[in-house]
């Protein structure tokens, strides 16, 4: 077990070619679970291969513990990896697969047997030890692949999209199981995924990547509530954040965003009051769960009547789509609310949680203010057309 630190890591496949990894800077503590998440081609798998030593970095340093491993071969880094395809040796039995790395490291047979028994028990694959990988189901192969990684007790575990070859139900089961296992074993882990739910649920720390650059590095909560830019905001969260392009105005000394549902309009006061934001093209970000049905408890918040265009009951929620400022906006409402299409709902917004992004660069604008009591949010005007 060890800490992992990446210092200004760069990777390019040749002069003139675009950088695959640019100034990657991150560190995790011993026993932490780091998620590298991003769309395909963002460099997350390359970064993982660089940590493993399967690819060389062209600049920077990779520190495991207090040792710089960037020049070392994979076998000397003391790392184990679980691959997306599992990469089980097809001609060897499950037992031989797990033993392989131990035998190469010249462990004596009694210790190997004990280690195989420990891992097999941990992963409940004792009954599979004499089978060949070809005779196992996908979920069983996945367990064996994890067993092979666990057996060596390396300093760091790398997981390269280990769940993406499983069917949906098994994936959710294994996700919970991996979290349980990590809580129990407290292993330093780097986990690559393109699935933002895996990123949110498993990680202690999440690094969101795009085009070889870390867009944001933080806890899942920070990434979700306080995204650094439009990309992170749109990538994390399901259903995704709503984005409404508009121009901020100043009313009574306050910055406000004017929302228009076609039936009614409302002014959404901004919690940030930066003078530079006035009369500027911005994108307003609002998560679906931050739009609620107007009720007595949330009086004082801006409300707006809007016509329901589509409803998607998912079971735990009902997703309702309305149009605001000519953008389709998703609202996540309670499941017992089953509005008919064409019905008018009165919606409420919490202005404290609204995010602003630059329309051109996608960068976050204004620092999120600490939560303020509702009464401080100023007067809410309602403009009814009819």
């Amino acid at each position: 077990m060890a800490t992992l630190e990446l210092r200004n890591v760069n990777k390019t496949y040749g002069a003139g070619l675009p950088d695959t990894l640019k100034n990657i800077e991150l560190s995790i503590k011993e026993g932490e679970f780091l998620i590298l998440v991003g769309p395909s081609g963002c460099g997350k798998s390359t970064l993982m291969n660089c940590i493993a030593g399967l690819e060389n970095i062209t600049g920077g340093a990779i520190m495991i513990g207090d040792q710089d491993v960037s020049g070392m071969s994979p076998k000397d880094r003391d790392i184990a990896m679980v691959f997306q395809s599992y990469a089980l040796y097809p001609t060897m039995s499950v037992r031989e697969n797990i033993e392989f790395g131990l035998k190469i490291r010249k462990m004596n047979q009694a210790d190997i047997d004990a280690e195989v028994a420990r891992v097999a028990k941990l992963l409940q694959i004792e009954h599979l030890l004499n089978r060949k990988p070809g005779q196992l189901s996908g979920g069983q192969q996945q367990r064996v692949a994890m067993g092979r990684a666990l057996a060596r007790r390396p300093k760091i575990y790398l997981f390269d999209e280990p769940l993406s070859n499983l069917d949906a139900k098994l994936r959710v089961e294994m996700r919970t199981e991996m979290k349980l296992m990590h809580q129990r074993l407290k292993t330093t882990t780097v986990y690559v995924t393109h699935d933002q739910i895996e990123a949110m649920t498993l990680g202690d720390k999440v690094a969101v990547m795009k085009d070889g650059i870390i867009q944001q590095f933080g806890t899942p909560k920070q990434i979700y509530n306080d995204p650094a830019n439009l990309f992170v905001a749109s990538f994390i969260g399901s259903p995704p954040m709503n984005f409404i392009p508009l121009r901020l105005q100043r009313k009574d000394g306050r910055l406000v965003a004017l929302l228009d549902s076609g039936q009614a309009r409302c002014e959404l006061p901004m919690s940030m009051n930066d003078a530079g934001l006035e009369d500027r093209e911005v994108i307003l970000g609002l998560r679906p769960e931050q739009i609620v049905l107007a009720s007595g408890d949330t009086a004082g918040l801006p409300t707006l009547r809007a016509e329901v265009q589509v409803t998607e009951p998912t079971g735990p929620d009902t997703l309702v789509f309305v149009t605001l400022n000519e953008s389709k906006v998703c609202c996540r409402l309670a499941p017992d609310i089953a509005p008919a299409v064409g019905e008018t709902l009165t919606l409420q917004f919490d202005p404290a949680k609204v995010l602003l992004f630059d329309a051109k660069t996608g960068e976050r604008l204004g620092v999120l203010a600490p939560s303020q009591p509702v009464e401080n949010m100023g007067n809410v005007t309602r403009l009814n057309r009819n």
Partner: protein
Amino acid sequence: MTSLANKPALSLSRVAIYAVLIVAVFIYLVPLVVMLLTSFKSPEDIGSGNLLSWPTEVTAIGWIKAWATVKGYFWNSFLITVPAVLISTTIGALNGYVLSMWRFRGSQLFFGLLLFGCFLPFQTVLLPASFTLGKMGLASTTTGLVFVHVVYGLAFTTLFFRNYYVSIPDALVKAARLDGAGFFTIFRRIILPMSTPIIMVCLIWQFTQIWNDFLFGVVFSSGDSQPITVALNNLVNTSTGVKEYNVDMAAAMIAGLPTLLVYVVAGKYFVRGLTAGAVKG
């Protein structure tokens, strides 16, 4: 009506297909049948009888005489073929392993150039090869002939192994490297055990090519070290005395038997290997 429906339909088209197939089989089998019949006939029988007629008396005299003549060359062929097949297959496997899993700068170009070897006709390499063998002091030796066969065969064996290994997922090699295995350990413990089908293909191909080779044999060997194909040619093309067709036919059969045997024996392993080696990536 139902009973009719259950019967296999012996329609006109079905009959036509079988008729064509039977004719094709007949045409292909006639030469073999003629060879077999002739090899068991006595010389007088051949001189008097119809080509296709049954022998009036079955005699193995042709086979005995043929074996006595070609016996030495038959073993020569083994001495040439077995080492040449094994060496070219081994190097081909290593080449394919490097070219698919340990790519280096320019390895694609290297492979492309190597492929030229597959398209070069035998005749074009005769002179350079004999020049090289002369320089190496291997002219007219069995070792020299083995060397030529190995070099010429490498293009094919490399192609076979490289194309087979390209379909093996890279992750296997990565996993083995993280497990601490080196270049040769990965090859021996992981890649080779998965290679049975392609090894069989390679062995069959190389054995057939080298055993049946005439041109390299006639150019690069002489006298007692010649392979059986050359000896057979010498036997059949002698212009003195009476033609002993029964001996010729028997000798030709003897020359062809080993390749036939390889197909019958290894062909079975080949199919078995293909199905047993199928593992989900």
